[in-house]
């Protein structure tokens, strides 16, 4: 009897180890309207910033103001998403997007003049990244 109990204990223990990744795969954070709104805000600011890249020569601070707004909201999103349980698949993309925006801000702060082509390509990457995150978040199950 003792042997049977020990054998069953090992079976249950290994069973949990096998089942856990499967459970993790299906337990995902529910839809969070605040998180969705923040991603949407970052994407919208990025869309509004893109046309400003071409007026950099006329109004150098026009883009910088938008970039600062973009950075503030991306940091807000990064901090908001960070500790939501079962949210790993959003935290990583959000961190990568924040990193892109941080690089853009650093360049505007470091250099007096940032090229139009760099600005357009960089902003387009940010738009694509946030759109991809937004699409995935929108499909999360409602609580």
């Amino acid at each position, binding site marked *: 009897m003792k042997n049977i109990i020990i054998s069953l204990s090992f079976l249950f223990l290994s069973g949990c180890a096998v089942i856990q990744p499967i459970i993790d*795969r*299906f337990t*995902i954070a529910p839809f969070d309207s605040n998180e969705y709104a923040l991603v949407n805000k970052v994407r919208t600011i990025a869309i509004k910033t893109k046309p400003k890249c071409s007026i950099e020569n006329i109004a150098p601070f026009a883009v910088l103001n938008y970039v600062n707004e973009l950075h503030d909201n991306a940091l807000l999103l990064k901090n908001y998403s960070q500790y939501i349980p079962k949210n790993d*698949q*959003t935290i*990583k*993309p959000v961190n*990568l*997007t924040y*990193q*892109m925006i941080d*690089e853009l801000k650093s*360049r505007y702060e470091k250099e007096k003049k940032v*090229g*139009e*082509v*760099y600005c357009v*390509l*960089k902003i387009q*990457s940010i738009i*694509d*990244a946030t759109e*991809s*995150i937004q*699409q*995935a978040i929108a*499909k*999360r*199950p409602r609580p």
Partner: protein
Amino acid sequence: MIQEVARQVSEIQRSYEQGSISLDEYKELINNVGALQAIQDASASLEENIMYRTIIVNAINLASVLA
């Protein structure tokens, strides 16, 4: 998706060859393409998990109705 990545890389490459962006900017933008791909992969994986989860939840609901 691969075509989109290839298009972006060729656009960055062309801009660098034309002298529109510096070497430093070129390296940064190429790194961004890699990051963008990682973001799209993570989002696709999340969408896949949501789809499987929905199928299982629906199957459980159906089973409870039939039981």
